[in-house]
């Protein structure tokens, strides 16, 4: 069974259709990279998976649970899907360590002492061993995004959703975030990544989707799709992001 199943998903904002009867199956262990021009629906598709956006037609199942299900279903889906945002969205009143501890304590009901150990080990993992006591405002963008990844991992998710995780970063800070993501992929974490990082798609992605106009236009192996774009449109798009 697929981990995530899109069935004829329709998402619209008023008269504007953003996802147009999308079908998609994502398997466990896949690193699915979604590319496409802005407004193509790629971020919306990602945000529908953990029900941050509601859908108007069709259904999405995450590990068999519907995003149109009960509050408890949605809660379970969100506990299963860690999310990393373009703007980091760290809680500014908490230190880096407290940010990472927050989910386990509040959402999983973990004791503070245990959560502290877990949070520290996750900060170690993203290369921020000594930054636990820092406020988010004292960290660089790349460091903040790595804390955000640690925070998402802290709820012990089965899959990770990345919404343009490097788009708000200076070029020289991107690689530190991408490196952490690459490590996760190597640990066979299921990942859905909306990004403009074509090199990441090529090297780390196990599958690539090109979206346009609320539809999946191409779906295949990243190396093949990027090496030999099957349409003029994709070739044109790739020339512009490079």
């Amino acid at each position: 069974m697929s981990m995530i199943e899109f069935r004829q998903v329709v998402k619209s904002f008023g008269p504007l259709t953003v996802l147009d009867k999308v079908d998609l199956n994502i398997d466990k262990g896949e690193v699915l990279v979604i590319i496409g021009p802005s407004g193509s629906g790629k971020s919306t598709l990602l945000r529908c998976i953990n029900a941050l956006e509601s859908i108007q037609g069709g259904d999405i199942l995450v590990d068999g649970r519907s995003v149109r299900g009960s509050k408890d279903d949605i809660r379970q889906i969100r506990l299963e899907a860690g999310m990393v945002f373009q703007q980091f969205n760290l809680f500014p009143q908490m230190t880096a360590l407290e940010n990472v501890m927050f989910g386990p304590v509040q959402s999983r009901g973990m004791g503070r002492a245990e959560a502290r150990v877990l949070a520290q080990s996750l900060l170690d993992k993203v290369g921020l061993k000594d930054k636990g006591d820092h406020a988010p405002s004292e960290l660089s963008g790349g460091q903040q995004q790595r804390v955000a990844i640690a925070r998402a991992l802290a709820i012990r998710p089965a899959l990770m959703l990345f919404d343009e995780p490097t788009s708000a970063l200076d070029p020289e800070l991107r690689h530190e975030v991408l490196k952490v993501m690459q490590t996760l992929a190597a640990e066979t974490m299921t990942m859905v990544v909306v990004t403009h990082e074509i090199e990441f798609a090529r090297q780390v992605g196990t599958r690539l989707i090109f979206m346009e106009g609320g539809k999946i236009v191409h779906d295949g192996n990243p190396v093949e799709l990027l090496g030999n774009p099957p349409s003029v449109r994709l070739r044109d798009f790739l020339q512009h992001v490079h």
Partner: protein
Amino acid sequence: MDFQWSVIWESLPNLLMGAKLTLIIAVAGLAGGLALGALTGMARTYGSWYLDGIARGYILLIRGTPLVVQVMFIYFALPILAGVRIDGVSAAILSIVINSGAYVAEIVRGALLSIPKGLTEAGLAMGLPFRKVLLHIIGPLAFRRMIPALGNQCITSLKDTSLFIVIGVGELTRQGQEVMASNYRAVEIWTAVAVIYLIILSVVAFGLKLVEKRMPIL
């Protein structure tokens, strides 16, 4: 004229009694007003259309009428309409509650709306119910942003208690009025009353400064 300090010393016990009542009305009224304002502000921000409607109606009514009219209504008209006699101090406290509540509601709403949506999403994406997101993430951040405006409201409401002279509540201004009516020493008495207000409000302002220092806006 000669300024007679002895007049002030003689009237000081009465004036301090008034100051005490001023503080009681302000503290009790603001405590209620902050609670009412927090609820109303949340209803305005997150409530269903009918909760929002009720909150809007209340705010319109209170902001659209003077405090003196409100307290007169509560003290004189409400007993006729509802058949319950209400004492002056209770009427005064109730007036501050409903009056400051309306202004606090808009302060709360503004602060809640000013918190970036992404923080709510980050909380929800962790599987937290919205009430926990509000309690642990949005609320504390919004509160910091409210402090300057809430401070203003506290100061305004505290001074507004002087209007309760119209229903005969023995707060500071009323006490001043009564002492002066017996000794006709307007300069000494009103100077003393003004200085007492100034001392109280300086302490409030200092307290607010400390709170803001400890809880800076992030």
